[in-house]
């Protein structure tokens, strides 16, 4: 029966061909077998191997991760210990620095005290020197002033009074000194030189010669000369001895005293 006949009888596209039906079943079962053995199984094996490899890698990674965690913890502990040690070292260093600072401060304080002492001493010395200088200046000025004043006011009267004062003091000399003076003057063969600021009158000369002869026991002649630099008074030269009773020598004594200061 051809297709046209089948169409006429209505037995067309909905017709079942049992040969096709059976062969399709067989074909499909064969196809299942082919794909199972030549496609699914190899591919699934590869996938399984890859999954196993991935799982192994994951396990390795997990293991490495655990090791890394352990190392991290270890390092963190070590870091904490280091921090602790560093803190302790820093505290020890701070203490050392504090001790050293205190020591340095005490040394500095002592040095400062020493320097202060030195400075005080120097200042005191400077003050003392200044005071002495002032005193010296004052003495010098006083001497100058006295010289100027006495130059202006000195005269024969003052000189007579100085001679009288000289004669009184010579008379009241201690015996010991007087004997030494007598020994020295007695041995001397030189003349006695009496220098005065003003010319001595005869009374004064007689009084002087008498006292000199009686008290000191000199035997030589007495020479007189005038020196206005003496301002007032006399200067008696007996050998190495010089007896001064004049303003010049007195003022010079002031000046020398000021220089000695």
């Amino acid at each position, binding site marked *: 029966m*051809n*297709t*046209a006949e*089948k*169409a006429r009888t209505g037995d*067309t*596209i*909905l*017709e*079942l*061909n*049992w*040969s*096709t*039906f*059976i*062969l*399709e*079943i067989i*074909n*499909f*079962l*064969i*196809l*299942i077998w*082919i*794909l*199972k053995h*030549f*496609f*699914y199984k*190899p*591919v*699934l*094996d*590869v*996938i399984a*191997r*890859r999954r196993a*490899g991935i799982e192994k890698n994951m396990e390795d990674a997990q293991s490495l991760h655990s090791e890394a965690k352990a190392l991290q913890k270890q390092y963190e502990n070590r870091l904490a210990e280091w921090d602790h040690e560093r803190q302790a070292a820093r505290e020890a260093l701070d203490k050392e620095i504090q001790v050293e600072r205190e020591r340095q401060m005490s040394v500095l304080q002592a040095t400062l005290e020493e320097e202060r002492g030195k400075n005080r001493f120097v200042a005191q010395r400077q003050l003392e020197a200044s005071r002495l200088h002032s005193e010296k200046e004052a003495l010098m000025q006083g001497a100058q002033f006295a010289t100027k004043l006495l130059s202006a006011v000195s005269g024969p009267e003052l000189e007579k009074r100085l001679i009288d004062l000289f004669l009184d003091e010579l008379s009241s000399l201690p015996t010991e000194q007087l004997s030494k003076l007598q020994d020295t003057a007695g041995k001397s063969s030189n003349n006695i030189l009496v220098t005065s600021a003003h010319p001595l009158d005869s009374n004064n000369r007689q009084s002087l010669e008498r006292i000199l002869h009686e008290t000191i026991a000199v035997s030589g002649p007495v020479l007189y000369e005038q020196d206005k630099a003496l301002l007032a008074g006399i200067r008696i030269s007996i050998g190495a001895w010089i007896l001064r009773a004049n303003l010049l020598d007195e003022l010079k004594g002031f000046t020398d005293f000021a220089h000695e200061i």
Partner: protein
Amino acid sequence: MENSGIIAGIVFQLGPLQVTNTVVTTWVIMGVIAVLGWLITRHLRMEPGPVQTAAEGVISAIEESIDAVAPGHMGHLLPFIGTLWLFLIIANLSGLIPGVHSPTRDLSATLALAILVFLSVHWFGIRTQGVKAYLHHYLRPSPIMLPFHIISEVTRTIALAVRLFGNIMSLEMTALLILLVAGFLAPIPILMLHIIEALVQAYIFGMLALIYVAGSVQSQQLTQQKHNEQIKE
């Protein structure tokens, strides 16, 4: 109509068996699939190339689908369900090749596949639980439901076969009629629809087969779980 190929013609006779062009096309598809499978799996490597990646992607997708519907039975169901999907995709799309007609536009072929699904449902069910326990679920929740279960089994098998057959055959018929009426290039939109429809129908057929099989397997598991719970109580 015979010349158009809508009706499967007999190519040659092999004893009592009539070898139609549906069977011949199926053999060609089988050959192509086998050769492709052999070529792909010939040099499988741990670091896959593009083709191996695609093949692994296909199998992984099938695995995930099976595992989503029937968890724990992927190893048993993969060859049957995977082969159904791969064969139906290629068989449905083969109608796009000029001069070639899809095997699934033949009711004999779709019925053969539906019968295989029908048998596999019982095969996997019995394999999972045993004959007695499996057949016992037809009597649940009440023995009155037995005829309805049987009718359901038959009708869903017929529906499975007729749905695929009807869709693919109608697609080819539509393309043929438009070609006759409108002329050359006019059926191109229909051919594009053919691609979508071929993929959708392959997916539907495979997914329904998977659901039927998974239902039989999991119904046994549910029965066993309830039975175990009753024993514990």
